[in-house]
């Protein structure tokens, strides 16, 4: 049986936020009497993640995804509840725990800006107690996987964003962590770089059975990497389960574009009882429920003279977008 590697129970996090009224009056008032209020950004959430799972955290900006990741890796202290990651309380930041995890933030870098990445790699290797031989071996292996070579010897400031992100990844993985927290890892990367990074994460997960917790606003990251998603809405979990189940629930119909040989047929089809979304001359777009696709198509092909036919999935971004604004998905 696969073990739970992350166990979160009734976790909450509050931040003290100071507020100020606009204008000079507000500024003076704020100077003498500062008003702070406690804002609960994570509200009593619970979930488990199994070893080797890749889980995507979905939510709108400010929903609390990154705060959850920061608590899981021990960067910030939870206000209430408990977290166990690989048997450790993350916030205690025990050396053995820190050697098992890594956190990659798309918009933050740990590489030394004016030196080539290789210097940062050897520095990280010594921080994680790797000897030079082992460090060299791992750098070689990871740089081959990430397809970076000459870039290792060029100052970080002269690398492109994609090359820098790959180098960041190498620096963060040199100690071969088995739990990866990735916060927007593909932020700002071009399509090819995004694809390469996703491919790399898939291979890394397959080869090392590493657990990956990922947040991303690029739906392709989520759909190609994660079987399971946790949707966060205003600090609470609105859905935790399989991604394909969520997509089915959110999008129970498929769009079918039918090109009829004659306009007559298309008019007949329009009045046949299907939900028509669009019609132009001899082209007609209808919506059919997922569970009756086969029978409906059979009926159409048997009764009408069809020239061409296209089945379209609704755009994933549009579907997932619905999750970001809804509070609860009971599936």
């Amino acid at each position, binding site marked *: 049986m696969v073990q739970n590697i992350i166990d979160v129970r009734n976790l909450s996090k509050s931040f003290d936020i100071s507020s100020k009224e606009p204008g000079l009056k507000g500024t003076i008032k704020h100077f003498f009497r500062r008003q702070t209020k406690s804002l609960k950004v994570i509200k009593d959430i619970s979930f488990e993640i199994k070893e080797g799972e890749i889980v995507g955290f979905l939510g709108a900006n400010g929903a609390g995804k990154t705060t959850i990741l920061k608590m899981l890796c021990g960067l910030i*202290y939870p206000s209430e509840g408990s977290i166990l990651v690989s048997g450790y309380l993350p916030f205690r930041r025990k050396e053995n725990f820190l050697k098992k995890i890594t956190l990659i933030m798309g918009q*933050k870098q*740990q590489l030394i800006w004016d030196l080539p990445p290789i210097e*940062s790699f050897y*520095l990280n290797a010594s921080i994680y*107690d790797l000897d030079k031989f082992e460090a060299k071996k791992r750098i070689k292996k990871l740089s081959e996987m990430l397809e970076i070579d000459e870039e290792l010897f060029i100052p970080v400031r002269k690398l492109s964003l994609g090359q820098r992100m790959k180098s960041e990844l190498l620096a963060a993985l040199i100690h071969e962590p088995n739990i990866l927290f990735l916060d927007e890892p593909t932020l700002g990367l071009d399509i090819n770089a995004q694809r390469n990074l996703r491919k790399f994460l898939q291979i890394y997960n397959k080869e090392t059975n590493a657990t990956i917790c990922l947040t991303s606003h690029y739906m392709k990251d989520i759909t190609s990497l994660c079987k399971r998603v946790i949707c966060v809405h205003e600090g609470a979990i609105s859905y935790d389960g399989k991604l394909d189940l969520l997509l089915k629930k959110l999008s129970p119909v498929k769009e079918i574009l039918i090109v009829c040989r004659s306009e007559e047929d298309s008019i007949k089809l329009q009045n046949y009882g299907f939900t028509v979304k669009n019609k132009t001359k001899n082209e007609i777009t209808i919506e059919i429920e997922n569970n009756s696709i086969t029978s409906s198509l059979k009926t159409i092909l048997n009764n009408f003279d069809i020239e061409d036919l296209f089945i379209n999935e609704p755009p994933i971004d549009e579907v997932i977008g619905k999750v970001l604004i809804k509070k609860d998905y009971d599936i």
Partner: protein
Amino acid sequence: MISNLINRKIFTLLKVQYSNMLEYRVEIALWAISGIIPFFMLNIWTNNNLNESINISDVLLSRYFLCAFFVRQFSVVWVVFSFEEDSLMGKISPYLIQPLNPFFRYFAQHLAEQITRFPFALIIAFVFFIFNPESIWIPNLGILILSILSTFLSFLIQFLIQSILACLCFWTERASSIERLLFIPTLFLSGLLAPVVSFPAYVKSWIYLTPFPYLIDFPANLLSGNETNISRGLSMQILWIFLLFPLFKKIWSEGTKKYTAMGS
């Protein structure tokens, strides 16, 4: 074993930071030049014959201020400013989840900067001796070693004080403004502007209870061959380190609980 590992980490950090500092060698040379305030003070003292009031010869006074310049060069600390910026921008986040306290990075950065400064400081000393040939002296090896040790201890005291203040970033966003409160006593009581011996007796007795005279006055007097109580000076430096270190550890451990990883 543990100390070996730490040494290896520190050594690698030092090596990497030194490479990094070499990228900024011009800036570091300018910083070294900007630290020549003791030479201005020497000029004021000798032109006004102020040294007669404290029975120090011109030669010993010029050696004192040269040594004050050297001690300052190798004990200057700016960790509170670096940490404040890194903390507010969320840059320390990746370092907080590595098995090495981020302050070791700043520590190595300071040491690397000092090594980079060394040749520039030597050039400035060389120029000083051209204009003051009577001040040339060679300290004996024992005194030289003790002076290097006390300069390093002075650096440690300043590093710990600033690190404690830097940790206040976890509570207030502008911890460096608190550091400015310490700037005036450091300037006047450390011996940078005047040897502490020149203060009235009742003030001196209080000053010696603070860490300030052990930052510049004591190591500079030791190196320049002026009269000083070596065992008391070193003991006080070690005592301050022993007092400040647990305070730093406590404030660090409490402060990181308050960390919100802003900006990331």
